[in-house]
């Protein structure tokens, strides 16, 4: 099935700079409908109101981390099938294992470029 580039993407990061960078990279890839949240709690609230085709989330945020957000998404009957890519500076093997066990769709380590983001989105969503 072809990827709908008009789908809503939710970018979750406590750094405004990083949200803006990811939004710009998504725009370069043809995804213009991007929403932002500064932490897991805000993201979860937005996900209750709107349907998202992809979540791209940082890990290290307060008060709710990206890992906790991922766990809550996977535990929710309504949200559990949403593709979820973790984009983080946490690059230790135990982090990748914990994220995989929690059901992450893919894992990107910061800093990264448009090519890496496109590659991981393709792996998760299919060719676009």
């Amino acid at each position, binding site marked *: 099935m072809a990827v709908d580039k008009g789908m809503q993407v939710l970018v979750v990061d406590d750094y405004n700079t*990083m949200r803006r960078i990811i939004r710009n990279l998504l725009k370069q890839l043809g995804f213009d409908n991007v929403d932002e949240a500064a932490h897991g709690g805000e993201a979860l609230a937005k996900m209750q109101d709107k349907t998202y085709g992809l979540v791209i989330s940082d890990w290290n945020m307060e008060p709710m981390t990206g890992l906790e957000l991922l766990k809550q998404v996977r535990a929710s009957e309504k949200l559990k099938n949403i593709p979820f890519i973790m984009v983080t500076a946490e690059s230790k093997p135990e982090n990748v294992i914990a994220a995989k066990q929690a059901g992450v769709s893919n894992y990107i380590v910061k800093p990264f470029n448009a090519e890496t983001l496109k590659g991981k989105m393709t792996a998760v969503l299919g060719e676009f």
Partner: protein
Amino acid sequence: MSDMQIELGRALLKGLVNLKTQKNGITLEDVGAMFLEMAMTLQPVSKADREMHEEIARLAEHIEETKKEIFAISTNEKSEAVIIDASQHLDEVIKATEEATNAIMNAADAIQSAAGGIGGEKEQQIMDAAGKLYEACSFQDITGQRITKVIKLLENIEERVDKLNGIFGGGTAAPVAPIANGVMSEKDLLNGPQLNAQAASQTDIDALFASLGGKN
């Protein structure tokens, strides 16, 4: 074992039991005072006893010196001011880099908007170059996290010194919670960016992710 060593062992044990009974707890300061008293009262008879006597005296002296140093650090307003000042400087670095990063991204936005009508290969080249400016700005996120880590470390040092001072002053420090059964908590997993020499690359992450059944 010499008579002095036996006598020393008994005295230590007795002293510790007395302290435990009287104060319902033993501080490092108590142990230091006990060593000092022993060093002053025990009479060495052999060479081994004399060496032990000297060691006890050194130990007592060392505990006293350490106590003074820690007290000096925690009560020295200048030292405290230096730590606060360093944290504030680091906060300023985060703010300054954030402002500079936003200025660069605003310029990149303007370049992309202006190039929008050019068309052809030139437009693509300009768009790509502006995109690279954006990508490079991700340094601010990484440096911000690193600096925040250092600020937390400084706060932690200050807190530890205060606790040590509490111990020497008769207070008790809260124990550091061990990792239960070797299982890391979610808090243990929050380490921030690793140093470049130690950090895993995206290729390493991909290999690990694939080995766990993930699709790259």
